[in-house]
């Protein structure tokens, strides 16, 4: 009864921060070594900036969901928890990009994200959770898909950790939606 248990947990859980300080510290430590190899670092910065764009979008997606008045209390609490994770990812990525000499990509307006994500089509809590699940799955796969491109293996490891967070979010959202788990193994990243 894993799915039902997960769903109850999702609806009843309250927010607690998890990742931010440790992630920032770890990413900051990685950056110092990477600075020595500027060409490789430049490529890694470009990838990190794409990741930062993803995090900006995720934060705003959860903001749109939280502000929609479509989420019940339990779902809202977890949406805000997941948003806090994405804010921690964002902060860690910005700190790393800056330490590597790069310029972090800027966040767009909430209206821009609303248009890009089709937020005007969200009519129910299920719609919001399905959008969130879709974005989390895409983000998990995106992080897994850039791992081979990193020149710095420690940054690749961080991408794996970020993917794990997104996968955890996706799994909880699938449970909340009472949707099936993947039938086959190795369904993430390919």
């Amino acid at each position, binding site marked *: *009864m894993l799915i039902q248990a997960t769903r109850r947990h999702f609806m009843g859980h309250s927010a607690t921060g998890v990742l931010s300080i440790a992630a920032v510290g770890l990413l900051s430590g990685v950056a110092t070594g990477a600075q020595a190899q500027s060409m490789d670092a430049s490529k890694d910065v470009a990838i990190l900036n794409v990741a930062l764009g993803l995090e900006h*979008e995720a934060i705003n997606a959860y903001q749109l969901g939280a502000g929609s008045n479509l989420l019940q209390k339990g779902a809202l609490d977890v949406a805000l928890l997941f948003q806090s994770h994405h804010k921690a990812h964002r902060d860690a990525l910005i700190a790393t990009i800056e330490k590597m000499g790069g310029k972090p990509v800027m966040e767009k307006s909430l209206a821009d994200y609303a248009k890009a994500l089709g937020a005007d089509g969200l009519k129910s809590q299920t719609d919001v959770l399905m959008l969130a699940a879709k974005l989390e799955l895409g983000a998990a796969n*995106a992080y897994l898909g850039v791992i081979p*491109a990193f020149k710095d293996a420690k940054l690749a490891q961080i991408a794996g950790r970020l993917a794990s967070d997104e996968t955890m979010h996706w799994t909880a959202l699938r449970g909340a939606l009472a949707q*099936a788990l993947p*039938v*086959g193994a*190795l369904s993430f990243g*390919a």
Partner: protein
Amino acid sequence: MPTFQVAPMSTKARQYAALTFAAFSLVGHAVVAANELYEARCGGCHSVAQDRVGPRHSGLANRLAGSVKEFGYSQALLNAGTKDGLRWSAVTLERWLTNPEALVPGQAMGYSLANPQERKVIIDYLLSLP
């Protein structure tokens, strides 16, 4: 020994699967709809109709690389389109998704899709988009 139960497919999902069977492709051990695979693998950054972290994919077939007007491409991809004439086809997309940096050094995507079966399904889907 813990046991895991998978929720049964809903009636709506079964109807959807039946109606869209023609669009399904065999990927590994699972049958996955091409649009679902696209959402899973590309949907973190892209959508069909809107520019997001990556540019929109509508009208991608034979499109010049770096040519969506409002999107902020890397200089490398802009040059690949305007100076080198790179256009998106089954051949160039295969090279792009296998190793984007090998095709366009200095590009910003970084993402690669290692599974050749999945690349085929996604390339066919991308090239079918109006």
